[in-house]
């Protein structure tokens, strides 16, 4: 049974009222009506969480609202999880968030869907340090590791997680919104597989039973050390760019200490997304995903859209030593200008 947009809306309404019982009742009602658990997870819970993210993005919901909603979705997932009959005689997989990635609900959804497909799953939780993952995987006998990454700025962490599991000879499947719409980033991280959603992950893992992947192809994304150098230089670059921003954006002089610290954070974010784009050699992270998102977030909070262009200009002025970064910044500025001209 297909879950309708109206049902998603009803669920999000329950989240908005912080009505856990209503959310649980709706999910159990679908289950009783014969909807498979995995359809409820992907069609209701995941879609509702996407809407939760959108409402934060457009400033309709606060960070607190977002966390409260996520806690309820998580509780509903927990209730569904009790209804999963654990299969016997199945192989074991480890599901974990990439190092640094604290959004654990998508990974937990994947873990439950994998259990539905008969895997015995150990879920390690949010942001598992790669070193812990390596030791854990070496200790248990596991068929594969699933690494979840929701935000591209943790792709560096995902790379470390992938390498940690592979060093124990275990194949790694990666997934999550941070991995983007296709296999490219997963390949650049050297992962053994990529899945667009939990059900696809279950299918891919299942196919590995017939034909195990050759563990650990060499990451092709690390063209050079620029993303690492950029990461190391980030604090100084932010400070230098703040100086440039003062010259280019006069209202900054009237900013409060708290507002200035927000501006520093935003510049830091721009650099982190740059790093991720360089790391995976996938400019879409920066140009198609991050910049439009940042523009929406800032404009919905009352800032002029031009502020993004000014921020890019300030960073461009301090990135002399980083040729690939400078080029991406230039492309971003061009794109922002085109969008401003067309919109």
């Amino acid at each position, binding site marked *: 049974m297909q879950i309708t947009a109206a049902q998603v809306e009803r669920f999000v309404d329950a989240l908005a009222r912080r009505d856990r019982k209503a959310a649980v009742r709706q999910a159990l009602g679908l289950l009783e009506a014969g909807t498979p658990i995995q359809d409820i997870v992907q069609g209701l819970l995941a879609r509702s969480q996407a809407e939760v993210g959108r409402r934060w993005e457009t400033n309709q919901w606060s960070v607190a609202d977002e966390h*409260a909603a996520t806690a309820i979705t998580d509780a509903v997932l*927990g209730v569904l999880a*009790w209804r999963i009959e654990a299969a*016997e*005689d199945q192989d074991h997989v480890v599901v974990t968030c990439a190092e640094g990635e604290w959004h*654990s609900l998508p990974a937990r959804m994947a873990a439950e869907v994998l259990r539905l497909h008969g895997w015995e799953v150990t879920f390690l*939780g949010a942001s598992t340090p790669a070193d812990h993952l390596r030791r854990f995987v070496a200790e248990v*006998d596991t068929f594969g590791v699933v690494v979840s990454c929701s935000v591209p700025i943790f792709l560096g962490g995902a790379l470390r997680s992938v390498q940690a599991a592979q060093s124990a000879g275990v194949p790694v499947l990666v997934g999550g919104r941070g991995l983007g719409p296709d296999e490219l980033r997963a390949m650049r991280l050297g992962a053994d597989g990529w899945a667009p959603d939990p059900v696809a992950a279950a299918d891919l893992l299942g196919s590995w039973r017939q034909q195990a992947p050759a563990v650990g192809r060499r990451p092709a994304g690390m063209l050079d050390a620029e993303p690492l150098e950029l990461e190391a230089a980030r604090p100084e670059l932010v400070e230098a760019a703040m100086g440039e921003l003062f010259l280019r954006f006069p209202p900054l002089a009237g900013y409060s200490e708290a507002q200035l610290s927000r501006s520093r954070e935003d510049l830091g974010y721009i650099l982190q997304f740059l790093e991720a784009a360089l790391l995976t050699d996938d400019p879409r992270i920066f140009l198609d995903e991050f910049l439009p998102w940042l523009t929406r977030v800032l404009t919905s909070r009352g800032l002029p859209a031009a502020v993004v262009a000014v921020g890019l200009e300030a960073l461009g002025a301090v990135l002399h030593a980083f040729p690939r970064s400078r080029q991406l910044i230039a492309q971003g500025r061009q794109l922002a200008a085109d969008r401003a001209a067309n919109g």
Partner: protein
Amino acid sequence: MHSQDEDPKTTMPIGEVSRRTGVTVPTLRAWERRYGLLLPVRTAGGHRRYSDEDVQRVLAVLELTGQGWGVGAAARRVASRGSAAAPALPPADELRDRLWSALDQALRELPPGTEAAGPPGDPPPTSRTEASAGALEVSGSSRQSAGAATVRQRRRTAAAAGHQDLELLQAIHEATRGLLYITSTREASEILIAAVHRLGGSTIPAGQADSWALPIDLSFGEGEPVLPVAEPLSLARMHLEQVLPGLVEDARRAVQLLRRSEDLDG
């Protein structure tokens, strides 16, 4: 002797072997693969089925480990003799090897610079804790409950975190223990908040969160969301990053169990 025509009563899925021996399925699989301890037959559908003899061999390994044998040596011995024979005393060499490897492991897991922390000849505190954790492991691994590997990993996480490892261990232990006795979701949340403070961090309502906050809600939907906070690159931050993911999962589990019993009650 392991043919497909074997009496179905004597063949069982691996889950049953696990139930009868208390050893987790992944561990059994590892013993099967590494030591050839289990000798399953395949059903027509390709599923592995195990016999009473497999159960006996696992129990024999547990018996040996209970007497101080290392798992590898015990499993190899039982596998090589093909059946559960009378237990023997562990050889002195074996004991010594295990002590050395526990110590070696402990030293490798020390954070950089810790080696110089103690006076010469006096083992640094981390190695002592890790060595004792290693000793616990001998009996621990003989009867692994579900999640035992996770718990062991947690312990190592704590032990590897530096010279304050004992304090960390105690904080984790008290929090986990507290979670076993919660009677409300709010108590789980309070236990996590107390643990964050004990680890040197603080907490903040999600609505006031800044970039120092870790984006992990400690309230489980009961009352206003609360996030842990610690200065980037501080020791407290490092401890929270190492310990909190697992602890929050444990708390979530406790809350789920609690809510489930509530569901069943009413």
